[in-house]
């Protein structure tokens, strides 16, 4: 497949591995922010290709993992409304809420359907005019523009039975929260698909304000290896900056049309992140013009606690402070089929990734 095979080429990878080992001068810790990167790093065995003095830690970039319990509780409240259908991305249905999960509710008869896109949820609404369709909107800057397009289409079509339970988030404030938290890192492997939308410039504050290097990175082994090399060089030269490794999809200013859709429909708000609590201006809420699509208006207020199971250390894992192996439940009580915490649910979750690739570290 084009744009995949060349970036998995063994010869190129081994050249990069060689350049990396010739460039290292000290210990380095780099954080991959995006869950897609965490997955790719394990899948392609990147850690085995680089010297031990380079440590890769995972960050908060799995949207399922950072979704709080109260969101799941609200989704379940939506599923209990009369004549309602929940349309959700697949990963979310196994995330535990306070007392139940959507998977459990579905087995008890709730109409919960898995969709691949917000447009599919809108289609279900068109086909079922007598029902209320609630789409669970989670995801970062990559996903939110698609939700925005869908909301605009719902507006144009005058849909009365389509709603969004919205928890879209934006990435940079969480990265800043990690830096302020004092997590010891030497640079970020920045999320390539977030940047495909936003442009690489949204990360400029990181080298400017905090003197940490950033490379906006693709998802194939060559991409990851090249980015690691770029970060090492930035460190060695003491010249932190934002570099784009993933040039084939990312520019400095990003996708203007997607940004326009996003800002037409959403505005910034404070948001809750599992493991962090409330992070200022890290969320997206529907603008007033589109408030009628907000599912929060059709459920009576659900007050729950976002506190996690005290033995689950998801929070520390999402902040890059601990690894899954430090969790007493990892692989014993908490497994992908029966997750205790959200990091074990999604394929991009750090605990889930570790479990699937059986890493003991």
């Amino acid at each position, binding site marked *: 497949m084009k744009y995949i095979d060349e970036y998995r080429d063994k010869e190129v990878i081994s050249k990069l591995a060689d*350049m990396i080992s010739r460039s290292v001068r000290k210990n380095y810790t780099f954080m991959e922010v995006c869950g*897609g990167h965490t997955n790719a790093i394990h899948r392609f065995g990147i850690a085995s290709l680089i010297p031990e003095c380079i440590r890769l830690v995972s960050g908060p970039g799995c949207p399922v993992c950072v979704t709080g319990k109260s969101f799941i509780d609200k989704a379940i409240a939506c599923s209990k409304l009369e004549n309602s259908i929940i349309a959700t991305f697949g990963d979310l249905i196994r995330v535990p809420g306070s007392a139940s999960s959507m998977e459990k509710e579905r087995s008890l008869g709730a109409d919960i359907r898995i969709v691949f896109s917000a447009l599919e949820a809108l289609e279900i609404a068109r086909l079922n005019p007598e029902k209320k369709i609630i789409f669970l909107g989670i995801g970062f800057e990559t996903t939110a523009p698609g939700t925005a*397009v869908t909301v605009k289409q719902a507006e144009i079509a005058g849909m009365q039975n389509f709603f969004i339970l919205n928890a879209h988030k934006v990435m940079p404030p969480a990265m800043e929260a990690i830096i302020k938290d004092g997590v010891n890192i030497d640079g970020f492997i920045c999320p390539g*698909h977030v940047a495909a*939308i936003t442009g690489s410039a949204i990360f400029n504050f990181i080298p400017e304000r905090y003197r940490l290097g950033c490379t906006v990175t693709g998802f194939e082994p060559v991409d990851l290896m090249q980015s690691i090399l770029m970060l090492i060089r930035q460190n060695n030269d003491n010249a932190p900056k934002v570099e784009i490794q993933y040039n084939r999809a990312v520019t400095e200013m990003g996708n203007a049309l997607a940004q326009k*859709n996003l800002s037409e429909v959403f505005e910034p708000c404070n948001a809750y992140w599992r493991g962090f609590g409330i992070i200022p201006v890290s969320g997206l809420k529907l603008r007033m013009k589109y408030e009628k699509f907000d599912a929060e208006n059709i459920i009576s207020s659900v007050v729950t606690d976002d506190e996690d199971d005290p033995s689950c250390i998801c929070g520390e894992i999402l902040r890059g402070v601990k690894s899954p192996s430090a969790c007493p439940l990892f692989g014993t009580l908490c497994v992908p089929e029966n997750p205790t915490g959200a990091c074990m649910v*999604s394929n991009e979750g750090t605990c889930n990734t570790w479990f699937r690739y059986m890493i003991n570290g």
Partner: protein
Amino acid sequence: MCLSIPARIMSINDNMAEVSAGGSIFKAGLHLIEDAKPGDYILLHAGFAIQKISEAEATETLKIIEEMNNAMKDTP
């Protein structure tokens, strides 16, 4: 849910395309990109094409790696 994959546009009908990736066919909304044509490669994410993939840049990146490698070989 957060994966985006490279896919090739097969056909376009209004603002929707059929795209192929890894031997499967998917639907992709084209609302977020401009001037898409059949044959273009795009990144598919949650049912939308979120960006076109630049062939020139894809080749350039690989060329740069090769050049860096040659430069490093020349320095002892």
